[in-house]
Structure formats: structure tokens, C-alpha cells
């Protein structure tokens, strides 16, 4: 079958799935701006996200600002996990937007997010080396060809 036709068919499937997900995923998952727009609708709704912990103030409960993908929400946590400024964490909790905060019930603080990034960079380097030592791009045909072909 013609290459362009195959690519067009596969791409149309991918885009269809993405458009379907764009509509349906949005009905099931909400972002912080969604919560801010309609606080009453999200009262006592569960929330899960990953992001950075900042503006920590310790007390009977630990209060902090949780920053996820550029959005911010005030959070309160009364569990045993000790937090430090700049920690990267996964949080799970219950939204109380009418009172203006997220009640965090479960939390996992990453041991060292920089280690994950460093190992991933190393992996990227290894990937490029493994691939490019055996394959070269042919600009005339727009395909990857074996180097010894």
C-alpha cells in the first residue's frame, strides 16, 4: 500500500482517539482552573496530581502551596510525611474550594526528582547512540536506512 495513504490512515485514527479523549477525559478529570471557575461544584471532590511543594508553614497541620503544571492551590496536610521547600510530590486529597484549599490525605514525596531527570538524560543519550550507530536518515527518500545497507 502507498506509504502516504498508510500514514494518513494511521494518523487519522490517532487524531480521532485524541479528539475523543479531549472531550471525554475532560468530563472525568478537572484542572485547578476548572475548580477556581466553579468552586461549589468541586466541594468534597477527590483530587490527585503531581507537582512542587512551596510556601510551607508547619503547625498542627502542614500548610503549603501545591504547584502543578503552572497552576497553584493551597493545601493542608496532617500526615507523617515531612516536607521541604521545593519537594516534588504526588498528592491525593479532597477539594474544599469554598474554603479555598485542598485537604491532602495521601502523599508521596519523591526521594530526588533530579536523579530521575539525570537518569532519563542518560537514557536519552544511550537511545540516540544505539539508534544512530545503525541507522542514518536519507533526506532524498525521507526514511531511516541501515548504515551498512
Amino acid at each position, binding site marked *: 500500500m502507498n506509504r502516504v495513504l498508510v500514514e494518513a490512515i*494511521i*494518523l487519522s485514527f490517532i487524531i480521532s482517539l485524541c479528539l475523543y*479523549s479531549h472531550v471525554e*477525559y475532560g468530563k472525568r478529570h478537572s484542572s485547578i482552573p476548572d475548580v477556581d471557575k466553579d468552586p461549589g461544584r468541586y466541594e468534597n471532590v477527590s483530587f*490527585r496530581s503531581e507537582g512542587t511543594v512551596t510556601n510551607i508553614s508547619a503547625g498542627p497541620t502542614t500548610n503549603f502551596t501545591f504547584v502543578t503544571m503552572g497552576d497553584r492551590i493551597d493545601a493542608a496536610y496532617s500526615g507523617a510525611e515531612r516536607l521541604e521547600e521545593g519537594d516534588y510530590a504526588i498528592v491525593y486529597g479532597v477539594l474544599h474550594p469554598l474554603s479555598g484549599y485542598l485537604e491532602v490525605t495521601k502523599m508521596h514525596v*519523591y526521594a530526588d526528582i533530579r*536523579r530521575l531527570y539525570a*537518569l532519563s538524560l542518560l*537514557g536519552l543519550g544511550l537511545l540516540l547512540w544505539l539508534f544512530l550507530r545503525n*541507522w542514518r536518515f536519507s533526506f532524498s527518500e525521507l526514511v531511516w536506512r541501515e548504515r551498512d545497507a
Partner: protein
Amino acid sequence: MPDWLTYVLSAWVVSEVLFISGRRYARRYAGVAAIGSVLPDLVKPFYLLKTYLGLDLIGFSVPLATPVGAFLVAGLASTLFPRRRWTRAFGFLSIGVIIHLIWDSMLHPLGGGQLILFPFSFKQYSLGLIWSDSILPLLIVSVPFVILMALRVTGSSTHGGGGL
């Protein structure tokens, strides 16, 4: 998700095992499998778009990290190889995708979970064995990696060649 080094080393290990089991072309395709092993992470640039430009296309990108979406992307990527290599390229890209999905399915459910049944269901599944920042997957894959490298180096000292 575990780090990319875990995915890429896993892809190399599987390719090397295929080579040892008689598929002589498998070493040349180790890099192709490695690319497949990070394909489901095509969702990550969409996170960056949201973080730095405020453009929220997270919902749009979700299928790229699901089995059906990742295999479709692998199919699309295999057309970037010569026509007579499509099947083989797709096979190795798929090996990488499967490796990625297996590692991710082991993550703790607090970190999300896999949309295994997408597009039929948005329910997320996970085995909850490891956290995404755990070094354990890398340690696990390091064992066969070291063994296979040792075999390869031993073989190269008698037959020539060697390295990754």
C-alpha cells in the same frame, strides 16, 4: 514513570536475548526498540505546553500513553523505515512499547495508573508495586544487562566485535 535509562536498557536486554536466540538482525534493531520504549512518553511535551504556555491539551494527549494509542504511534513511526522493513521495525517498536507499559503498570496507583482499556474505558489500572522515583526497576534490569554484556565481551574477546 521510571527513568528512561530503565526503559532503554530493558529494550536493549530484550533485543540482545533475541539476538542470542538466533535473530541475527536483533542487534541492529536495539535502537528501534529503545525508541519504542519511550514512545508512550510523547505525552510529556504536552505537560510542558501546559506548564510553560498555559495551553491545556492534556486530555488530547492521553491516548498516546495508552496501549492502543502507543501501538498506533509505533505503526506510524515504522513507516519512516524502508517499505520492506516496516513489519520488522513495527515489531521492535512494539517490543519497546510493551516494555514501557509493563514497567508503568507496576507503579503505585497514587501516581495514576494505566488506561489499559482505552478507548472503551477510562478506568486506570496499576499493580502498585513501585513508586515512579524508585531505583528498583533500574537495579532489576541491570542484572540481565550485566550478564548479557559479560557474555558479549567474553564472546568478542574470542570472535572480535563487542560493545553495546
